[in-house]
């Protein structure tokens, strides 16, 4: 680790001003950033912890059929308090291990956009809205390839709004070593349509499987997928799975998500 300054502001405004100096970086739960620092792969001059900001914490029922989750809410808090959206609470409750869940945050996970992370699938699969200190970003406009997002430098995720679906499920096939998603599929059924979001699989990061969505809009049953297949070309190939395997798993996990949601 290189030397850095550490500040822990109590308001978003103070956090933003702390972040406005050179090479300052937001610190969520540190579950991605701290290991990166330990390996000397990043050298921020200042870490701005978001964990002391009350307005970024917690799960709230917006009263309009949606849940709001503060940008610095831990996975454990979501698992415990997002019971109104069971598939989301279940997803949060299966990220990493208890230590990771007690520290890691939704904002950190989304800002990092690891191609194998779980939350991006929930956000995209729910058509959630990501609020930052200066704007609202639709899920479809937020993720930008591997580890990329449309966040600006110094922009903080303050909350995420999840419309609660009629039925949903997240099915994660574990990468054996990291236990991130080798392939994870989030299926959510709303009154105005079904959304299917896939993480872990694509070289372009989390994506919507629109053919499956169209088929499921006609009938929300696994049979709807029978003739569908994902092309392997853009799938990730690595130690843990070939492109063909990942393409195959996308379909299997989608099927299982539909079964679990039905």
């Amino acid at each position, binding site marked *: 680790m*290189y030397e850095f300054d550490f500040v822990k502001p109590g308001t978003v405004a103070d956090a933003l001003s702390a972040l406005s100096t050179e090479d300052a970086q937001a610190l969520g739960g540190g579950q991605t950033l701290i290991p990166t620092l330990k390996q000397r792969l990043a050298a921020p001059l200042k870490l701005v912890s978001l964990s002391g900001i009350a307005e970024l914490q917690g799960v709230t029922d917006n009263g309009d059929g949606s849940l709001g989750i503060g940008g610095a809410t831990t996975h454990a808090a979501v698992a415990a308090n997002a019971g109104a959206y069971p598939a989301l609470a279940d997803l949060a409750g299966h990220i990493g291990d208890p230590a990771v869940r007690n520290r890691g945050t939704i904002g950190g996970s989304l800002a990092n956009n690891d191609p194998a992370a779980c939350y991006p699938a929930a956000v995209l699969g729910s058509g959630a809205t990501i609020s930052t200190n200066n704007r609202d970003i639709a899920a479809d406009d937020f993720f930008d390839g591997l580890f990329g997002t449309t966040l600006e430098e110094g922009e903080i995720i303050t909350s995420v709004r999840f419309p609660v679906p009629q039925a949903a499920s997240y099915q994660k*096939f574990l990468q*054996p*070593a990291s236990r991130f998603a080798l392939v994870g599929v989030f299926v959510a059924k709303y009154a105005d349509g079904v959304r299917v979001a896939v993480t872990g699989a694509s070289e372009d990061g989390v994506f919507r499987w629109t053919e499956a969505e169209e088929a499921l809009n006609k009938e929300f049953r696994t049979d709807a997928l029978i003739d569908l297949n994902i092309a392997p070309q853009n799938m990730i190939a690595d130690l843990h799975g*070939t492109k063909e*395997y990942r393409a195959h798993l996308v379909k299997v996990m989608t099927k299982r998500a539909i079964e679990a949601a039905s």
Partner: protein
Amino acid sequence: MPKDSGIGASSKRREDVRFLTGNGNYTDDINLHGQAHAAFARSNVANGTIDSIDVSAAAEMPGVLAIFTGEDFVEVGGNPAGWYIESRDGTPMKEPKRPVLAHGKVRHVGDAYAAVIAETNAQARDAVEKIEAQITELPAVANTVAAVADGAGLVHDEIETNICFDWGWIEDNRAATDAAIKAAPHVTTLELVNNRLVPNALEPRASLADYNAGSDEYTLYTTSQNPHLTRLLVCAFVMGIPENKLTVIAPDVGGGFGSKIYHYGEEALVLAAAKKLCRPVKWTADRTESFLTDAHGRDHVTTIELATETDGTFIAFRTSTLANVGAYLSNFSTATPTYLHGTLMAGNYTVPHVYVNLKAVFTNTAPVDAYRGAGRPEATFSIERIVDKCAHELGIDPIALRRKNFVKPDQYPFTSAAGLEYDSGNYDGVMDVMEGMADMSGFAARRAESEARGMLRGLGVNSYIEACGLAPSNLAGALGARVGLYDSATVRVNATGNISVMVGVHSHGQGHETAFPQVVAEMLGIDENLIDLVHGDTSKIPFGMGTYGSRSIAVGGAAVVRATEKIINKAKKIAAHMMETSEADIDFKDGAFSVAGTDKSVAFGEVAFKAYVPHDFPHEELEPGLEETAFYDPANFTYPSGAYACEVEVDPETGKVSIERFCAADDFGNIINPMIVDGQVHGGLAQGIGQALLEHGVYDDNGQLLSGSFMDYAMPRADDLPFYAVDNSCYTPCTHNPLGVKGCGEAGAIGSPPTVVNAVIDALRSGGSNVTHIDMPMSPSRVWTAMNS
């Protein structure tokens, strides 16, 4: 009634109290006054020439005390291989120098070419980044098979080949084996890979050196499984320090699995730095360094053939193997794939012909050496996989085929076709136990139940034999070992009756501190809590060859027995003097010396006290004191054996394997502490199952370690493993060591990999697949791909 102390008692592991309460004392816990810190500059290319190293900017960094490069160690020796191997054509193995720091060339990612000593660890690391090394990258020789192909680049230019040796075992049997296979009515062939493993001890390697300019003495605290061997290597081969000027202390060590047997360059570096600076110097590996530089395990590419009669009678095993030894020869790297592998290639079987050809191959990867099981897992895997394949081809039940060819109890001592003399065993008896545990007759119902849920269920078995208790020095010496392989013990009875037992074997998780006192307590008839084990300090222990190859109780324990026998003999003399009788009239039983036919008796404690308060000893006849040392050199290896059964479920949609049942029946001979033995088997099974399903050290074509962190190297976790059923009730005591013990530390890791693979292949077959083999680790992707190709 189970015993509650002494041999056979499940005494609770006394060392666990300190481990579990955070009171362990590991190398990195030790901090000496004035201590400085070392950090290493390591190659990020697999192969390259070092054109220049400019340390001037680094030297200017805050806190920097000294910088070393390979240039500083040109005059000192290389880290040697401990076993000499001769090729089939009589030429000696190739032994390129393994320097303290790379010089001229870097040969694997992680190869250290410079080191910085600074006031703090962070300063040392900061300065390492300022070292400017011009290294011209060369094409990497990363793949074992490619390394021996025509036109392959060279890892060591000066030896003009990547083949370290081309060994035949037994070369004189080659022609007969070839002829037998040619004439055989059935030959089964299998190509397989024994996957490379990264040991991943929980505690990374660490070394702390101290130098006393006044006495010219060094102390090295280091993570070692055998501090005496480290001392010998550092003194006699690398640094030229007189052996009596170096104390090596291996305090608590958090797991080794083989990787901490060896001497590594970092140990020599901190010693040199401590002397130069006259300050203690510490280095502790981070996890990345562990992945890149600890000696890895396995990594064989093998073709094996099994020739049989049509009724399944084995005629011959023949193997051809490429064993990756990495970029440099680690200390046991030449012995492991040869004498710990080829000699086991007859398995538990009366097969008349065996021939093993093994080429050791240099590659631009981390050194490969003994890892839990060391050679025997590779032998067992090859044999037990091909026996299974053969059974299927011949339509014979796999257990029946094994039984048909087993060495039978009345055949011992049995000289195997691979040249070892098995002293004892009962393979059918152990198989009977396993079949009972595994509830074979219930399998069909369990399979039907799995199938009803859409899962495939398979049952796999194996039988293994291994060789432990390394080794008779005369045999090892004749075969090329450069060290003797005895061990030693001193039993020191103090005046107040408590006892210190100093042993040359080292405990780093095995439970010696509990089990060894049980042996002494049994022999002396005293409370085992009066006895403490001392290990891991060359200044306190006569000598030792350390812990590996499941040798501690078989060799070190035998030395303890011999030393304790001497104690009893001496104590009898003292007791005879105390009771004014002759030594021949003294009986020793339950901790008391008595005079036969009288009611006279003195307790062991009284004798101990007398030994040190000898007011009335006849000086010419009786020496004061009660301390004895014994060296024990075994007469043979010990031969544990076993039979395992594994049931798996395979999800045909995803290829995911889950282990549903695992039964292990082992013959470990006599057992000192059943609970510890069960624990050793559990741990071994976890590692074997890890190898079968999860673990894989993978280099890409550029020699970069792709599975270089826990994000990609899959260690087995609790939920990957079943509840094991283990049993060692069918046992045949070792015939040649005083405890009749065989060793249990590695068996689980040796017997389990083929068992798991056999089970998975059986499951796939039940689903209509004709897959005959899947290389380990059988990841979901590999299983699915095999099912669908």
